[in-house]
């Protein structure tokens, strides 16, 4: 558990406790999507897609 993870976790828990119109808007902000690649000799070798659409709320790890 790092500070960043803790701060993100608290924010996710807050978003889970919201009323409906605000909740869907906030959930959209929670999604994390990015693609990362490891480069060697000017060429990308490994592509990793990280897609967290639900956030971390409700999950303990």
């Amino acid at each position, binding site marked *: *558990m790092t500070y960043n993870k*803790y*701060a*993100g*976790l*608290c*924010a996710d*828990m*807050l*978003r*889970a*406790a*919201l*009323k*409906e119109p*605000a*909740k869907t808007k*906030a959930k959209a*902000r929670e999604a994390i999507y990015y693609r990362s690649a490891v480069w060697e000799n000017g060429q990308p070798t490994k592509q990793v897609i990280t897609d967290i659409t639900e956030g971390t709320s409700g999950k*303990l*790890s």
Partner: protein
Amino acid sequence: MPRGGSPQRELQHCCLPGAECQRTEQEGRARGFKITGDPRKLGFAQCHRTPGPLHPSALPPPVPNSQEFLSKFAAFQGTMNEPEFPSNFVKPVEKVENASVPDKLKFNFYIPSAAINQGSSVDLVLLPATTGDFGVMPGHVPTVAELRPGVVSVHNELDKDVTKYFVSGGFAFIHADSTTDVCAVEAVPLSDIDSDAVRAGLAEYTGKLASLQGKGDDYELAAAQAGVEVYSALNSALGL
């Protein structure tokens, strides 16, 4: 205009106003004045001398301030303009009591996705810090405070126009010029919070924490503790 001598050369009475000075050349020299012209040929000044240390009795009485001078000058003014004084060219320093403390706080409230307040002028902001709740008014000591899950109250006008937000955490910075920056990870108005979800969440995390006591890894334990902290704060914010 006194006769004798060019306007450039300074003419000074040795001791008495011109017409009354009857001193002879000898006398003038004896008193230490250098006579540079024939006293008898001079009209207005009976004797004159080149600039040098003046006898104290020959000195004009010192004028205390420019107003007094001007009132004396007025008798001789005629059509002349008034002389300038150095104080005319010096800007007066405005002395304001407590100039450094503004009467309203400059408040910025940011979350990653929006600027809730930007440069707003407010009277008071109540912040929930990990070290305890405190309020910020203009003139607050410069502070960096870590915020815990809790309620930020923005008093646009003290006790009259109050807006409350629940923040999940973040930091508050109070600067020396009374600019306050609050940066939160997530902040919502209290009206957007669902009471049922809060009750359910509190029960869930309290249960998880109880069941994890002594077992389960550190991360799960920490997450359960965070859950209890957030939902307890939400609980008390809504007055449940």
